[in-house]
């Protein structure tokens, strides 16, 4: 991995990362691709990023697993950009930077004189990527947002959940994380514009728009062309009034994802029926079932779907997730466990692929296991070179080592609260 340390995809690129909460994943992607990402936190640390869950359940901002996970490979400094000294320091840093990533409310950086236009006067190559709930302008630009309300506004919430209960989200917030990843893509496109022209620009990311892409699939087009308004249907999937199909079933020790899809030429349904027959759990009528003609979602009755699905449901209840997955692989059946966090960590697939990475935490005197990088690149595999920074861990390195502030100046800046 030494080559990766020397030269990676984004070596030589510097990012100032002011993004908060889930949007921090944007800077992590840059850092994992080899960029020098400097996390800029307010003095005392970023409250939105240093949240639960915590290492050994100790609620300490320096022990946030959320922070750890999304800040690997970054360096960290503290800086109060609301002070005059803080703004000057930020401007000096911006002269050395290729990207600024931020997630403040629209107008916040403008009021401090640190918006794209101001920074581009100091550094015409700079790209400023702003991630906000609804974007920089427009009728809802001033709205406040939270992950749940952005699930709501993007349409993903209404389509998820049991019909007899309120719409429901995914308990670990997703909207801002999706927007952070989208922001990385937009920033890289702006980078290629800079390669062509030498100029930076402002990239304006909307969490709402991003999450529409994530949760729409084909619902907007189905509404426009067919008038369909997708409603939540528990674990069934299907557009319109038809019975749809179950996407998951209970088994002995949890749930599995399996859908009776009649795809000619795939062993999905046939292979499953054959296995059930071998174990004496497929009645004759099912073994001889005419899937192509009888299991047509546009004509079939709910009663018939229930009758067929029940045989599968009964069979799955006699097996564990592991037993089902093992046979699914052997028989080429499209079935996987509905993985719990425990299942994810124990899955053979990720172990074989060396997905899990051990990272030393000198400050905890411990080694923690992390999710691996998002990609496998043959030439620049990358690695987790350093754990997430402690609060202000690299202040001296950056302020003294790179910007040349003296220790007297730094002690003034520190006592005044600028750093």
């Amino acid at each position, binding site marked *: 991995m030494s080559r990766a340390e020397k030269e990676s*995809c*984004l070596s030589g690129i510097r990012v100032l990362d002011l993004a908060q909460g889930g949007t921090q994943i944007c800077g992590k992607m840059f850092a994992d691709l080899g960029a020098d990402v400097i996390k800029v936190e307010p003095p005392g640390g970023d409250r939105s990023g240093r949240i639960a869950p915590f290492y*050994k*359940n100790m609620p300490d901002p320096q022990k946030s697993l959320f922070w750890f996970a999304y800040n690997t490979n970054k360096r960290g400094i503290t800086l109060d950009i609301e002070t005059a000294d803080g703004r000057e320091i930020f401007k000096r840093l911006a002269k050395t930077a290729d990207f600024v990533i931020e997630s403040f409310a629209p107008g916040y950086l403008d009021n401090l004189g640190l918006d794209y236009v101001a920074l581009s006067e100091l550094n015409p190559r700079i790209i400023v990527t702003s991630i906000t709930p609804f974007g*920089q*302008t427009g009728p809802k630009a001033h709205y*406040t947002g*939270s992950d*749940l*309300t952005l699930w709501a506004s993007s*349409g993903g*919430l*209404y389509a998820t959940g*049991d019909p007899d209960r309120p719409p*429901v*989200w995914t*308990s670990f917030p997703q909207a801002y994380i999706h927007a952070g990843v*989208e922001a990385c*893509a*937009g920033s*890289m*496109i702006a*980078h*290629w*514009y800079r390669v062509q*022209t030498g*100029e930076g620009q402002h*990239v*304006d*990311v*909307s969490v*709402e*728009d*991003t999450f529409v*892409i994530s*949760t729409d*699939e*084909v619902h*907007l*087009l*189905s*509404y426009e062309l*067919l008038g369909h308004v997708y409603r*939540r249907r528990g*674990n069934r999937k299907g557009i319109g009034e038809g019975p749809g199909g179950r*996407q*998951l079933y209970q088994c002995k020790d949890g*749930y599995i*994802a399996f*859908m009776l899809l009649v795809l000619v030429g795939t062993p999905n349904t046939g292979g499953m029926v054959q296995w059930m027959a071998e174990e004496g759990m497929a009645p004759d009528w099912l073994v001889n079932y005419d899937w192509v003609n009888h299991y047509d979602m546009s004509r079939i009755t709910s009663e018939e779907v229930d009758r067929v699905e029940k045989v599968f449901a009964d069979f799955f209840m006699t097996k564990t997730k592991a037993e089902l997955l093992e046979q699914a*692989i052997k028989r080429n059946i499209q079935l*996987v466990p509905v*993985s719990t*966090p*425990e299942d*994810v960590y124990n899955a*053979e697939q990720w172990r*074989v692929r060396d*997905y899990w990475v051990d990272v030393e935490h000198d400050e905890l005197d411990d080694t*923690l296991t992390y999710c691996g990088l998002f990609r496998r690149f043959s030439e620049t595999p990358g690695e987790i070179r350093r754990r997430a920074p402690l609060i202000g861990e690299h202040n001296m390195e950056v302020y003294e080592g790179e910007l040349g502030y003296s220790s007297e100046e730094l002690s003034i800046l520190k006592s005044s609260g600028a750093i």
Partner: protein
Amino acid sequence: MAGKSIEMGKVMPLEGIKVASLAWIGVGPMGIRYLAHWGATVVRMESHRRIDTMRQSRPFDKNIPQINRSPWFAQANGPVRSVSVDLKRPSGLDIAWRLIKWADVLAESFTPGTMAKLGLDYENVSKVKPDIVYLSTCQMGQTGPLAKFGGFGFHASAMAGITHLTGWPDREPTPHAVAFVDALASRYVGVGILSALEYRRRTGRGQHLDVSQCECGIQNIAPVIMDYITNGHSAIRSGNSYPYAAPHSVYPCKGDDRWCAITVFDDIQWEAFCNVIDQEWTGDPKFASLLSRKQNEVELDVHVSEWAMGYTAEEVEANLQAVGVPCHVVATVKDVYNDPQMRHRGFLRELKHSVMDEHTYYTHGFKMSKVEGDWRTGPLLGEHNEYVFKEILGMTDDEIAEALINGGITTDADLAVSMRES
């Protein structure tokens, strides 16, 4: 605002970048969109003998089920040039090789092993074209016991641990109605290609990119997985609650299945919330602090629901947003379609197509201050055969005729009868 004083540029970001793509269905083409909409020249190889399932998916333009009338396909592909070739015929494979030699990027999203069968695996391609950026994406990744698992989006969400976290703790999980991991993974595909191209620009070196869509999904819940590894805590879905806010849920409003989502994180928002709703119970000490609100959350939610039911979801949204409390109507797809913000940003656009009526398509989640995306929609199958074969590859009329005769180039005549244009 900043954007107003910035002049628009004249070049497209990825002008000059050439992509040969065999990526099909969801994640691959959606990842290529990050290049196609921003100036790259993308040639997508398709075949009339093995049609992309998105071309065959509802809804269809004018309700005519034909391979060139799926707006979903048009949305997922964007301005790429389509050629129709059969890689199982020597002359079709020859065209693929010529395109690969022309390209900077080769992208594919087949089940691992498929490209090797065609002799188009990275090892072979890099011998001929050492600086190629070769993108492979599939559900589980190129290696491991599940490598060849070819599932749907709901399988990936389940395997990655996201489905388990969706729904109510006392009930079975409720999967998303969409392939949740697909759009997400496509972003990682886009970033992967764009950054590998940057490495190639500086060093002249290509490489093989293996993007496992499931691993992308796991990234998105990494802290939950670390909570298990580090603390032994295997989290479970918890409805709409969140540890740092109360109220934090979805509340019923006036009308048929109308709801609003309300989240109150701190004391400032709580005070603003109380002022707006003007209810006596808000003065009860058991709701005075975040900790006490969390401890009495069930009772709190009953009160908030009773209040919200007296108003439309739009009224609740307007009144709470006016005082800075995060709140939004739980939008149906109809609400999203009519959302003025998305139209203002040009995120939702009515776009033309070679044969279809204008339809409304989503674009990207970001806007650039100096350059606008090329928002043309996806191609007809084989629409750019002549341009690509002659202008890009320099094939002669005789070569093209021969490939047509021996089936290397496919045509409408190769379609199954049920799919032909009437």
